[in-house]
């Protein structure tokens, strides 16, 4: 193993969190920074011929290669786990920009009470209403503390939308249930496709409060405070699982890289596969010393660094902590240990698939263009007489539907899924079908967690990460509550037939849900129940920070990227303002 010259900062992972940290530190300090990204180099030009549904959306060109490394999944601790042999229910990205390249750009903030979920729920409903085996926790940061950082994330991306609450003043047409914002969105809402417009009008008629979905597929040309300009979205419909060919969708490569590339203090090494965080595990002054990685040719290196950032997404952050023997692994049967606990996904499904008489022209769209309602999110509605806690957002997005993924959906009256009758119906309904989707809160449970798999290994021989995860009553009952509401809206939209979602059963690794997986290295107010402090600094190793949604104690219904960015900004400020001068624990 070759030891490289020491640097001030090493960042593991070149996605939103890692590159934002690199950009902030490079712009505001003189620190030398190395970013290690195990995927390939990427830039906007790479996407000029990427509008190929088969290679990108079906064969998953932009995702981690499951042949090299995947995860295993089981529903409970009594089962043996199966490897996810081809990614399905979530799609971890690879390459510079990470999953931030292939996202849809849906950009909501979390509701204020999400950050104090345990105390607010007890306060309102009493501890008795907390579900059995729950592991719900407060985050150790409040919405009010995070708001300025959310605003910086809004400005970084130029999020398109309509505010519903500016400093407490409710504004009709925006999401009146959202937390306060210090300012209007940087850019106007996106254009609204037909299907979303039908949803907006029907929801309004039924007494809901529709608003345009906040979008990173920016509605107008935008220049951010760093001086980075992006064009307006053209609604080509190739967002999710694709990189944006014109750079209208904010991605790390078009939003952060232009700044990073100007700084000689940062270098990004691609095809650098980090295997261990090297640390001194004895004595009182526990320190990370750097990381061990192998390059494309299989040669192993030790990169010493004064400061280590893990920013390699929820699953790999957790796995690297476990592989490096940092912290105590969580054990479900004793409840002891913190690394790997509070694994959550997102309660994501299509509660109503609607079939219309009129064509929808649904090939046009963008990943985040559409309309939502927040009337059934969080604790916006009273749960006293309901058999579950929390809720989620109903969305009617015009993603730009592509044919391989969407052909073949027919009303339940059509029998079979091949042959002439099916073909006729599927052809007729191809452009007459729209799905209302749901993004719901997934609570944390003692029974949902991550550890190292005892059987399956990656291509280097390291154990895979094992996910023990299943839905529980709270999610199932939430789904049962939402489905008829969505069906009612679909009917009010003029659908001739509606297929309701059959209900959440056991966790299905094959049905794509969302790429929002959280937990494993969660933040909190105490080292007894969390891995990092509210500045995402490791409790025991102060020169190790773990960025990203691995820090979320539980899922909060909305999509995570703006919250990841806000928390990263907050950590960057704490490092620049305090840690650099006095490199010790921030809490």
């Amino acid at each position, binding site marked *: 193993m070759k030891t490289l010259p020491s640097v001030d900062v090493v960042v593991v992972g070149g996605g939103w969190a890692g590159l934002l940290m690199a950009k902030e530190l490079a712009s505001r300090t003189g620190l030398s920074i190395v970013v290690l990204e195990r995927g390939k180099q990427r830039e906007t030009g790479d996407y*000029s011929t990427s509008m190929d549904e*088969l290679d990108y959306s079906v064969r998953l060109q932009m995702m981690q290669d499951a042949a090299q490394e995947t995860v295993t999944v089981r529903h409970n601790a009594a089962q043996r786990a199966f490897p996810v042999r081809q990614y399905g229910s979530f799609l971890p990205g690879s390459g510079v920009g990470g999953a931030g390249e292939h996202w849809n750009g849906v950009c909501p903030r979390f509701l204020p009470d999400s950050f104090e979920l345990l105390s607010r729920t007890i306060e309102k409903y009493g501890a008795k209403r907390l579900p059995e085996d729950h592991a719900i926790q407060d985050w150790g940061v409040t919405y009010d503390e995070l708001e300025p950082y959310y605003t910086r994330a809004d400005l970084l991306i130029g999020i398109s939308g309509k505010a519903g609450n500016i400093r407490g003043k409710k504004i009709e047409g925006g999401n009146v249930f959202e937390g306060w914002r210090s300012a209007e969105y940087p850019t106007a809402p996106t254009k609204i496709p037909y299907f979303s417009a039908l949803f907006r009008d029907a929801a309004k008629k039924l007494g809901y409060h529709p608003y345009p979905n906040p979008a990173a597929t920016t509605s107008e040309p935008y220049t951010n405070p760093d001086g980075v300009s992006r064009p307006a979205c053209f609604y080509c419909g190739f967002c999710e699982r694709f990189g944006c060919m014109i750079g209208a969708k904010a991605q790390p490569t078009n939003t952060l890289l232009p700044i990073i590339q100007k700084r000689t203090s940062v270098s990004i090494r691609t095809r650098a596969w980090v295997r261990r965080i090297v640390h001194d595990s004895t004595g009182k002054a526990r320190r990370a010393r750097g990381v061990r990685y192998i390059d494309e040719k299989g040669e192993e290196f030790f990169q010493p660094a004064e400061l280590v950032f893990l920013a390699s997404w929820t699953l790999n952050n957790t796995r690297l902590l476990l592989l490096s023997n940092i912290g105590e692994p969580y054990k479900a049967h004793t409840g002891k240990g913190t690394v790997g606990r509070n694994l959550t996904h997102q309660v994501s499904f299509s509660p109503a698939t609607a079939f219309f008489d009129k064509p929808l022209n649904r090939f046009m769209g963008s990943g985040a*263009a559409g309309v939502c309602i927040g009337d059934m999110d969080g604790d916006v509605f009273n749960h006293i007489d309901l058999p579950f806690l929390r809720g989620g957002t109903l969305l009617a997005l015009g993603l730009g539907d*592509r044919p391989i993924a969407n052909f073949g959906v027919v009303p339940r009256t059509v029998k079979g899924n*091949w042959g*002439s009758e099916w*073909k006729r119906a599927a052809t007729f309904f191809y452009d007459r079908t729209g799905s209302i989707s749901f993004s719901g809160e997934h609570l944390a449970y003692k029974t949902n967690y991550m550890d190292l798999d005892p059987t399956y290994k990656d291509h280097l021989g390291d154990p895979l990460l094992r996910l023990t995860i299943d839905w529980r009553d709270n999610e199932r009952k939430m789904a049962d509550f939402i489905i008829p509401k969505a069906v009612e809206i679909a009917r009010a939209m003029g659908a001739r037939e509606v297929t309701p979602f059959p209900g959440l059963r056991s966790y299905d690794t094959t049905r794509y849900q969302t790429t929002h997986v959280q937990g494993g290295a969660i933040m909190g107010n105490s080292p007894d129940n969390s891995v990092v402090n509210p500045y995402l600094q490791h409790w025991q190793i102060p020169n190790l920070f773990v960025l990203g949604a691995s820090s979320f104690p539980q899922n909060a219904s909305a999509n995570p990227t703006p919250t990841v960015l806000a928390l990263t900004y907050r950590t960057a400020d704490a490092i620049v303002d305090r840690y650099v001068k006095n490199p010790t624990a921030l809490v």
Partner: protein
Amino acid sequence: MRRREFLTLSAASIGGALVCSLDRKVYRLCAQTNQAVHIPLRFFTESEALVIAGAVGRIFPTDETGPGAQEAGVAIYIDRQLAGPWGKDRHRYTHEPFDDNAPAEFGYQGQATPQQIYREGLKKLKGFTELSPAEQDKKLKEIQGTVFFSLLRRNTIEGMFCDPIHGGNVDMLGWQLIGFPGPQMSNYADIDQHFGVAFRPKPASLQQVTEVSDIRPSEDEQ
């Protein structure tokens, strides 16, 4: 080394049809002529290719709704996919232990690659091309629950609607059938117009839209 196999198609064998050759040229076969086209195969033998062409033609038939999998070149699409990285499981996690009886929500846990699944599945379709359409449907119904059939069905939809660069969707027949225009550089002026009325731009392929002629599809990866 594998003997070079060709799929020989004549107008008489499949009726009036469009086929796409490996050099991505579209041939139009007219029922009136005796013209034949020889398409080099990468994975199938000629008789296997004819069985697959027949089977996908029943899954996505040519009928009064419009053209089907035969004209769209779905068998050629599948041949190329099987010969490429997907057919060999190059990007699937293939460590042991495997389990052919895993619950469905954990996905396919077997050891067989798509190439092997097709070779095994083809054994159950011996003599398929000699059967009448009704008998062919009956035969396919018998294997409906198999991994092979679900792959075949999925690949049929892919081959109908993929970009023509992959060998299927010849002449964008699949896209024309459902009114999908292919990749469009901009829908900016139209996204919030045409409400309730079919808006159908003329389909264009990725090569046509981008004017890039050397786009390499994943199945050509070495």
